[in-house]
C-alpha cells in the first residue's frame, strides 16, 4: 500500500466516526459539509474530521481510495457510508442513529 493510502486509512481509523469535509465543523465551507456536521452533532456522536481544502493530495487520494467523487464523505467503523444526501436520508429513517450505536 502506498504512503498516501496509508495516511488516509490512518485518518479514517482514527475515530469510529470520521468525516472528510470542506472546512471544519466550526466553520464548514460548503452547505453539504455543514449539513452532515449538523446531523452528526444532532445524534450526539463524537467524530473527527479532516479539511480536504487544506491538502490537495489527500483530497485527490480519498476520491481514488473510496472510488467516490464528491465530498463530504462520512466513514463509520472504517467504512464509507456516503455523502450529504445519504446521511440525511439515513438520519430521517433512523438508520444512521442505529449504525452509530453499533
Amino acid at each position, binding site marked *: 500500500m502506498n504512503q498516501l493510502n496509508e495516511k488516509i486509512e490512518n485518518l479514517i481509523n482514527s475515530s469510529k466516526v470520521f468525516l472528510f469535509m470542506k472546512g471544519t465543523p466550526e466553520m464548514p465551507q460548503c452547505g453539504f459539509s455543514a449539513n452532515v456536521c449538523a446531523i452528526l452533532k444532532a445524534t450526539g456522536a463524537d467524530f473527527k474530521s479532516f479539511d480536504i481544502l487544506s491538502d490537495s493530495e489527500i483530497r485527490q487520494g480519498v476520491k481514488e481510495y473510496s472510488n467516490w*467523487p464528491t465530498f463530504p464523505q462520512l466513514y463509520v467503523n472504517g467504512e464509507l457510508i456516503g455523502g450529504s*444526501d445519504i446521511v440525511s436520508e439515513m438520519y430521517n429513517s433512523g438508520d444512521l442513529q442505529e449504525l452509530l450505536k453499533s
Partner: protein
Amino acid sequence: MDFEKIKKLIIDKMPDAEIEITDLTGTRDHLGISVISKEFKGKPLLAQHRMIMNILKEGLQTEIHAVEIKTQTK
C-alpha cells in the same frame, strides 16, 4: 444538461426504472435525480447511488458533482 438524455441512459441499464429529474437551482446544473427500481432491492444506499453514478459517469463522460440522488426500491 439534457434531462431526456439522462433518463435514457438510466432506462437503458435499468428498464424498470421510474425516473424523475428536478432542477434544484433553476440553472440546470444542480440536478435532483430520483429513481425507483427493483434493482435496488437489498442493496445499501451507497451501493444504490453508486449504480446511478456509474451510469451517469459512463454516459456523460464527466464526473457529476452537483447532483442529488434519491433511490427507492419498488
